[in-house]
């Protein structure tokens, strides 16, 4: 009995630890400036504070927020929507490219005898060992000369190349688990290798690809440093924008929380869409079939 109580207590603690910050951001996004800055925090909507949609309408529609302390300057009209679109385009394309190219490379590593395979795999992994910040200045100069600053292409190239090693390593492990006989059977059955891979191996690998895509998308979606430095205007993504809301002088917690909530929703939706594949992908190979 005591064990059960302790178990539920521990579980409640863990859930609180992970869920409370999210809860806090969500309720903050519905608070007025007065409520969000109150000394005794307001915890329950409808009870402790009167919720408002002003933060969202400010973020999305560029309306002003009025309060006792005066009118708060509105965000420039539609800026968040543009940034969100940029984030979706850059993360989406770079994830698709990384998963696509990484999957093909992983297939080759898994199925063919490649001279120096171990060294090549280590080389691919080693590109992830250097923190991006270290190469920030060279990248900045490269991109300036190549005209890649403030472009979709620039960040797509960077995010893709950052995620490919991860995809290669993950997918190689998954492909190693898929019996070679499947595609051999398909090849004997009258298909070329490409057709066999497309019709038999890829459908088997979809759970793994979904799991890998979620992880890659999260990396690209949340990336701040490179985006903040390279894409200041036209192709800027959401994370630097969130930073800009913090702004000068007073921190606009309400609007920041609203923007953060809106920023998290797409990645949650994406994870939700692939959730059926996800669990199988993450636990792939853990169970002997």
């Amino acid at each position, binding site marked *: 009995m005591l064990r059960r109580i302790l178990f539920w207590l521990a579980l409640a603690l863990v859930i609180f630890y992970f869920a409370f910050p999210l809860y806090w951001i969500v309720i903050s996004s519905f608070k007025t400036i007065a409520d969000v800055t109150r000394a005794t925090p307001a915890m329950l909507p409808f009870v402790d504070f009167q919720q408002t949609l002003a933060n969202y309408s400010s973020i999305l529609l560029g309306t002003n927020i009025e309060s006792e302390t005066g009118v708060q300057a509105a965000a420039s009209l539609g800026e968040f929507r543009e940034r969100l679109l940029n984030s979706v385009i850059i993360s989406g394309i770079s994830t698709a490219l990384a998963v696509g190219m990484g999957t093909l490379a992983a297939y080759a590593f898994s199925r063919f005898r490649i001279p120096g395979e171990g060294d090549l795999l280590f080389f691919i992994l080693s590109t992830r060992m250097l923190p991006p910040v270290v190469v920030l200045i060279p990248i900045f100069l490269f991109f300036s000369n190549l005209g890649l600053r403030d472009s979709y292409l620039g960040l797509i190239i960077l995010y893709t190349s950052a995620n490919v090693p991860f995809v290669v390593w993950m997918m190689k492990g998954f492909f190693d688990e898929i019996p070679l*006989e499947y595609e*051999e059977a398909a*090849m*004997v*059955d*009258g*298909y*070329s290798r490409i057709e066999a891979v497309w019709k038999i191996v890829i459908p*088997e690998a979809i759970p793994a690809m979904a799991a890998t895509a979620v992880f890659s998308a999260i990396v690209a979606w949340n990336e701040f440093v490179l985006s903040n430095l390279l894409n200041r205007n036209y192709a800027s993504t959401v994370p630097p924008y969130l930073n800009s809301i913090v702004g000068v002088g007073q921190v606009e917690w309400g609007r920041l929380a609203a923007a953060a909530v809106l920023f998290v929703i797409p990645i949650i939706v994406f994870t939700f869409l692939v959730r059926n594949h996800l669990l199988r992908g993450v636990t792939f190979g853990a169970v002997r079939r």
Partner: protein
Amino acid sequence: MASLDMQQVSKSFGRTKALSELTLSIKDGEFLILLGPTGAGKTTTLRCVAGLEKPETGTISINRENVVGLSPAERDVAFVFQSYALYPRKTVFENMAFPLQARRLSPQEITRQVEEIASKLRITELLQRRPTELSGGQQQRVALGRAMVRRPQVFLMDEPLTNLDFKLRVEMRAELKRLQKELGATFFYVTNDQVEAMSMADRIAILDHGKLQQVDVPEDVYSRPANQFVAAFVGSPRMNFMPCSVDSSQRRLVGSGWHMVLAGDALERLSKGSGLRYVFGVRAEDVQVTREANHETIAGKVYVTEPLGDRTLLDIQLGETMMKVKVPATFVTHPGETLHLRFDAQRFHLFDQQSGETIV
């Protein structure tokens, strides 16, 4: 259906020689079984024929057309894998339709052909299931069905019965043999189970360390093994082997603690020097066991008795060696009893101790 011809096929993996100059022909409509221990190169042979491995040298011809260099898809062979390799995301019907779709047949035609084969294999009621919902025996039938719908030139089968339980394996042996005759198909079948090979094959090819040892009809592989390896590998219990030498003056074979008088022209066939060492081989059922001694018998002590029901297997200690001997179940004995063995001058084998080649 077609003939298959392999000439001087060699294949290595790194420094390991998997196949060395394998030459083997399979006639149109023949059931040929490639038999050998694990690691002999049997599967490699099949994979070379299927085009899944590329041999370094040699030619492989299907219907007198060299297929080396053709992709697996272009060879028109069917491969039944030991693991069956059924596509897990496809239903039984889709699995069987898959090779036909590659040929761009119309959906009606595919359905017709799949249903025809399914009824022949009695798996019609399984067509909408997925492979994971099938028993091992059912999966085996589906794998066969997927091979059969294609009506390929040659069926390649890699130990297809190994994963089945004993009872099912025995049933499937008869079934496979019947199907092969019914289809008039060319079967190239690989196994390490000599009973399977003896019971199904038109001819058996025995492979060891990538080298072909013998190709013959089952009876001849059993009664006229080409060398000591074949003699040891085929037959259960294993053939008894004892070193011996030839005493040509008295026309007999001499081993440690026993001798056997040779009959007829046997001595002439091993006339090359009497001092040479040989290996004497005799099968358990070719040894006569009596309780009366005479000048032709050799005394031995019963070590273990293994009743098999219809027969009893005796382990008999003969000098330093142990022999397995089969006696009728009515012959009752017990460990420790001294019995007398007589070798039949017509039913024994003699191998060169160095090369293992059969001499008599």
